[in-house]
C-alpha cells in the first residue's frame, strides 16, 4: 500500500487545479442531460481537448489530445474536476462507446470520418442494441439486414434508443447471417438517422419524461461498407463497447458527488426547528450509506491499481455495476425520505426542491439497475465468472406437439 502519487503526479495535479481555477467559470451551466450539447458545452469540450483533460489518449490525427495512456493522470483529472464541482468533457454514447470501438476495430477511413466530429459534439449518436424480444438475451436479436445491390436492407425494431430523436447517426446490431449461430450471425452497422424508412417514437418512462425511444426500420438502405468489423462479428464488436458502458455506470466519483449532495440536503432541509440530519434514524441511514460509498471508493482504487500492474480486476471489478447502481438508488431513496412530504413534489410544483432532481434520480436509477445488464444478469456473471458456479442447464425447446400432449395430460390428471 502506498497512496502517494509521487512528485510528477503531484505537479500534474497542481496543473489541473490551476486550469480549473483559471478557466472553471467557462464550464457549461446546464445539467449535461441535453442530448445535443449547447454551444457553451461544445466550447468547453474543445478547451478541454486542447489541454488534454478529455479525449486525452485519443490520437491527434483523430481529433484527440494524443497523450500516452496514463491511468493515474486520467484519475487525477477526474478527481480534481469532481472536487471542484466542475463538469468534465462530454460523455455521451458516441464518445464513451462508439469512439473506443472505432479506434479499436474501425477502418482508417471510419476513424477519420467519425471520431473527430463525435468528440467535438458535432455528430450525436444513438445506440441500437436492445429489441422488444432481445433484452438480457441480446444475442437473440431479430432486426434483419439482407444485401441487395451493394446495400444492406434493414427491417426490424429497436428499443431503449436514447437520444434517437436528436441523433445524427446510429450504431446498430443487426442479423446479417440468418443461417449462422445465434452469436455468429450479427453485424455492427453505422448509418444516418436521416435514412429513409426510419421512424422514431418517444418512449415515455415512469419519470414522466421520454429519455428513450423506440426506433422502427422499414427497408432502410445502408451501403455495405458502413460496417465495423466483418460480417458476423458484430457480437464481438458490441462486447468491446459494453465493457465501456459498464465502466461508465459504476463511477465512484459520481457516487461521492451524490452522497455529498445528500449530506448538504439533510443539513439544509428543516423539520420543525431542527434539520433532517438531526433525526437519529435518518442520520444512521446516512452513515450506513457513507460507509458503503467509502467501500466502493476503496474498491475503485484497488481496481485502478490492478490495471496499473496489468492485472485483471477480478471479483473487485465484476461487482461494480451491481453495487454502484443499487447504492446510487439508495442515496436518492434517503434523500426523498429526508424530504418527507416535500419528497413527493415533482414536475415543477410549488415548493419542489432542486427541480425534482432527487425524485427523477430515484426513478431513473431504478432504470439503470435494470439497464446495461440487469441486476439479475450481473449476479449470474458474478456467480459464474467470479465464483465459478455452474451455468443454468439448457432446457430442450418444447415442440408445439409435445406441449399439446403435456397440456392434455395435465388436464386429465386435474380432472381425475
Amino acid at each position, binding site marked *: 500500500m502506498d497512496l502517494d502519487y509521487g512528485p510528477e503526479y503531484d505537479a500534474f495535479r497542481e496543473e489541473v487545479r490551476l486550469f480549473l481555477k483559471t478557466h472553471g467559470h467557462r464550464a457549461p451551466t446546464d445539467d449535461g442531460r441535453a442530448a445535443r450539447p449547447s454551444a457553451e458545452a461544445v466550447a468547453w469540450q474543445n478547451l478541454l481537448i486542447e489541454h488534454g483533460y478529455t479525449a486525452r489518449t485519443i490520437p491527434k490525427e483523430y481529433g484527440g489530445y494524443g497523450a500516452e495512456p496514463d491511468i493515474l493522470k486520467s484519475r487525477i483529472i477526474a478527481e480534481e474536476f469532481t472536487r471542484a464541482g466542475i463538469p468534465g468533457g462530454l460523455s455521451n454514447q458516441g464518445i464513451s462507446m462508439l469512439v473506443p470501438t472505432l479506434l479499436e476495430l474501425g477502418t482508417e477511413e471510419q476513424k477519420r470520418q467519425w471520431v473527430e466530429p463525435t468528440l467535438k459534439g458535432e455528430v450525436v449518436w444513438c445506440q441500437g442494441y436492445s429489441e422488444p424480444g432481445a433484452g438480457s438475451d441480446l444475442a437473440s436479436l431479430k432486426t434483419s439486414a439482407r444485401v441487395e445491390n451493394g446495400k444492406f436492407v434493414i427491417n426490424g425494431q429497436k428499443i431503449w434508443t436514447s437520444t434517437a430523436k436528436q441523433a445524427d447517426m446510429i450504431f446498430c446490431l443487426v442479423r446479417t447471417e440468418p443461417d449462422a449461430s445465434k452469436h455468429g450471425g450479427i453485424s455492427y452497422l453505422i448509418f444516418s438517422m436521416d435514412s429513409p424508412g426510419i421512424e422514431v417514437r418517444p418512449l415515455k418512462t415512469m419519470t414522466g419524461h421520454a429519455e428513450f425511444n423506440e426506433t422502427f426500420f422499414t427497408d432502410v438502405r445502408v451501403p455495405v461498407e458502413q460496417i465495423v468489423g466483418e460480417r458476423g462479428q458484430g457480437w464481438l464488436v458490441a462486447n468491446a463497447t459494453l465493457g465501456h458502458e459498464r465502466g461508465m455506470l459504476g463511477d465512484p466519483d459520481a457516487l461521492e458527488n451524490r452522497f455529498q449532495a445528500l449530506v448538504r440536503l439533510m443539513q439544509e432541509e428543516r423539520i420543525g426547528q431542527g434539520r433532517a440530519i438531526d433525526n437519529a434514524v435518518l442520520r444512521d441511514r446516512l452513515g450506513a450509506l457513507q*460507509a*458503503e460509498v467509502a467501500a466502493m471508493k476503496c474498491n475503485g482504487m484497488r481496481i485502478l*491499481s490492478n490495471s496499473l500492474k496489468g492485472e485483471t480486476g477480478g471479483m473487485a471489478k465484476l461487482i461494480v455495476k451491481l453495487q454502484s447502481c443499487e447504492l446510487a438508488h439508495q442515496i436518492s431513496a434517503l434523500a426523498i425520505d429526508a424530504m418527507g412530504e416535500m419528497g413527493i413534489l415533482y414536475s415543477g410544483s410549488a415548493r419542489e426542491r432542486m427541480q425534482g432532481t432527487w425524485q427523477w434520480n430515484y426513478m431513473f436509477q431504478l432504470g439503470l439497475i435494470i439497464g446495461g445488464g440487469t441486476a439479475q444478469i450481473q449476479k449470474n456473471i*458474478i456467480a459464474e465468472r467470479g465464483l465459478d458456479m455452474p451455468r*443454468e442447464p439448457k432446457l430442450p425447446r418444447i415442440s408445439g406437439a409435445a406441449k399439446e400432449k403435456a397440456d392434455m395430460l395435465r388436464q386429465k390428471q386435474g380432472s381425475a
Partner: protein
Amino acid sequence: MDFGLSQEQQMLRDAVAKCLADTCPLEHVRECAERDNPISDKVLAALQGLGIPGMMIPEEYGGLGMTLLDAALVAEQLAYAVAPVSFLASHVLAPLALSEAGSEDQKVGWLPKIASGEARISLAISETIEARDGAGVTCRGGKLNGTALFALDFAGADAFMVADTTGRLHLVPANASGLEKIPLTTIDRTRSVGELRFGRVTAEPLADDSGFTAERLRDAGRILLAADSLGAGQAMIEKAVDYSGQREQFGRVIGSFQAVKHMCAEMAAHHEPCRSLIWYAAYAYEAMPEEVSLAACHAKSHTGEVHRFVARTSTEVHGGMGFTDLIGLHYWFKRIGFDRQVLGGPELVRAEAAALQGWIKAA
C-alpha cells in the same frame, strides 16, 4: 501509487494460512471450544514459529515491528480458520499501547516476553465505548475500583490493561490482590473474554504524556475486528459455493439454480469491497492518522452489516445441514456475531462517525 499488498505481505498471509491449515483443522477447534480456556497452545506455538506474537513489537524489543495492515492480514487468516488463539488484545493492542505509551521499564519488562510467547496481556476498554450494567473503572490515588467487562484474550493472561473512566490505561498483574476475574461465556467459543472486578487494586498507569490514547487503541481494535469478520465471511462464502456444487436436489447440483447462485453472488458483491475498505483503514492507521478514526468506523460498521448478511445467507445455502453442529459452520457464524458487537455495534459506531464529522454535536 499502489493500492494493494506488497510481496512480503502476500507471503505473510500465505504463511499464516498454511500454518493454520496444518495445525488447526476443525476437529481441533471443536476440542478447544469445549474447554473453559479455549486458547490452543499447539496453534500458538506454530504461530510463534512465524513470529506472530511479536509482530507489532519493535525490533529493539525482540519483535518484528510490523504494521497494522500486516496484523489485519493475520486476523483475517485466524478467522478464516476460526483459530482458537489469543491475538487481538495480547499480540496487537496491548503491545501497541506499551510500545507507544509505556515507560522504558514497562517496555523492557513486557515486550520481549510477549514477543517470545512467555507472557500475554489481556485488554479491557469496552467501557470507553459503552458502559453496560453500570460497569466502569475509576482510579484514585493509584488504586482501581469498579468493574470492567469484556476483557479480551482473557484466559491465562499474565496481566490486564484496563482503561479507566477518563480513558487512561493501567496495567494490573493477574495476581494483584483485590482483583477478581470472572470468565464470561459468549456465543464464540474460539475466543476468551471475561469480567474484571477491582477493589482497591494497585495499578501501574501507562505514561500519559505520549499522546497515545484509548481512542487510538479503539481504532486499531475496530479495524482488526473488521478484518476478522472479513476472514470469517470469506470462509462462509467459499463453503456455500463448495457445498452448493456438491449437494444435489431435483437431479441437479443446487448451485446450478439461479436462486442459490444469486445468494452467493450477493454475498460476494457485498463482501469484496469490504476488503479494500479494511486495507485502506489499516494503512491509514500509520500513514494518515488524521483519517483513521472515521475509516475505522466505516470498516467496523460496514463489515458488521455485510457479514451478518453473509453469515445468515451462507447458512441458508447449506440448508438444514447449515443449522446443525455436524459441519461446524456455526463457528464462523458466531465469530462474525462476536466481531459485530465488540468495541461498538454498527449503530453506535455510526453515531460516533457522525459526531466526528460534525453532523451532530458530540454527546
